[in-house]
């Protein structure tokens, strides 16, 4: 499996699209978490102004995007890493020669896991630098989160991002491609989840209850429990942090296993 992981990392590192995804995640995170609130500190959103961008909010600010927009980027990463094999026609050579299907698959998941960790840590690092710069510019005292809080934050961010990446993987394997899995994945993430929360849940009790078992609301609950502002899209504390982490982890495992099962049992085209 190590050879497969090393091989997958070779591809992930050298593929320009993956660096572009990281750059987009970084740009969105810095813009909407720090620059916009800082720029609007004197306007109608003053309550979300400078104070919300200071180092003591680093954990909540760095993971707030994973339930929706950064999650979409993780999903695209998972689809590209897996669905690309169908597009290039490379599964039939990769899986017919060399390691077993499951070995290649687990190597791919391990490489995606590392890539996701790099994304999460990069958002934390960029957030730390930006919040420190804002604090210095405003002459504010810097209160940094403890190492333990940072570790929990990175872990939670990784768990959520990896869950969305796994959804991308299982969609790519199931639909044997790239375009349709990205399309359907984004429709779920950006549209269906919001419609359920904003339209259906206030009208139907059973939808409100069912939300507590869905991946997005649990991801939103987890980051809310760790300090993300509830004004952030997709963030609301519907369930406790323990349940949220367990549900997100369960989806991660189920998506991963389902993708492996499909890849193992189906024909290679």
């Amino acid at each position, binding site marked *: 499996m190590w*050879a497969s992981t090393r091989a997958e990392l070779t591809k992930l590192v050298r593929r320009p*699209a993956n660096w572009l995804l990281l750059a987009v995640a970084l740009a969105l995170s810095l813009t909407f978490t720090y620059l916009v609130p800082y720029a609007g500190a004197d306007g109608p959103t003053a309550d979300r102004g400078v104070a919300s961008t200071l180092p003591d909010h680093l954990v909540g600010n760095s993971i707030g995007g994973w339930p929706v927009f950064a999650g979409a980027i993780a999903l695209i990463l998972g689809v590209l890493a897996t669905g690309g094999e169908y597009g*290039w026609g490379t599964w*039939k050579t*990769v899986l017919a020669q060399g390691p*077993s299907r499951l070995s290649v698959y687990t190597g791919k998941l391990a490489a995606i896991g590392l890539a996701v960790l790099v994304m999460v840590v990069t958002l934390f690092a960029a957030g730390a630098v930006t919040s420190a710069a804002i604090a210095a510019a405003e002459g504010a005292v810097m209160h940094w989160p403890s190492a333990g809080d940072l570790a929990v934050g990175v872990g939670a961010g990784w768990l959520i991002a990896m869950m969305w990446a796994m959804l991308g993987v299982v969609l790519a394997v199931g639909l044997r491609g790239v375009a349709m899995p990205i399309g359907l994945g984004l429709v779920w993430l950006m549209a269906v989840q919001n419609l359920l929360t904003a339209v259906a849940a206030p009208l139907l009790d059973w939808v409100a209850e069912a939300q507590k078992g869905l991946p997005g609301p649990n991801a939103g609950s987890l980051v809310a429990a760790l300090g993300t502002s509830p004004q952030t899209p997709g963030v609301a504390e519907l369930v406790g942090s323990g349940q949220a982490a367990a549900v997100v982890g369960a989806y991660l495992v189920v998506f991963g296993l389902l993708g492996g099962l499909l890849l193992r049992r189906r024909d290679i085209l």
Partner: protein
Amino acid sequence: MDTAIEVRDLVIERGKRTVLHGFTCTIPRGSVTGLLGPSGSGKTTLMRAIVGVQIVKSGSITVFGEPAGSAPLRHRMGYLTQAPSVYADLTVRENARYFAALYGLGAAEADQAVADVGLKKAAGQLVGTLSGGQRSRASLACAIVGNPDLVILDEPTVGQDPVLRDELWKRFQEMAANGATLLVSSHVMDEAARCERLLLIREGRLIADDTPAAVRASAGTDDLDEAFLRLIRAQGVAA
């Protein structure tokens, strides 16, 4: 004769069409065997079955004594598909290094495979920007990078210029001399003479399994193209 591949009574259906009808043949170890026949005759299907990615209706295929597609064979096999199967958004070198890494091999082996297929100068070029023939060679480099015991090559010389085709065939013969078994498909008869053994296939049936010299002799002509035509006609008469 030390056998590398043994195919017995192989029947394969694709959709509602029977592609191979009780196909039987053996392929000797350490040789270059040509699989020749017109387009649609079942060459690729037979190769896919030997590699182990094709569902078989009946019959058996063993490779080095193991059932085709079984796990112990995967590290011993290189497969070049008809359409190049490489990553267009990576360079030739990066592609070769990816496949080398799958085998636990390093950059040196990958670079050697790229040089072996005549792509040393294009090693840093994105595969997506290569010509069709170069792309096919990039795919070939990835198929042979693991130094496999069995190499299945589905029309490896399509789109290559005559000089390069000659170099590739010399490389195939070197690999066989070093103990590898190669099964090379083509529908170009002038490549048949370069093989030690020929399997002539038409409409899913084996019509000849012999050396090029014996095929010529049995058809009563020195021209392999003509020999193939005579064998087809003779088969038609017999049927």
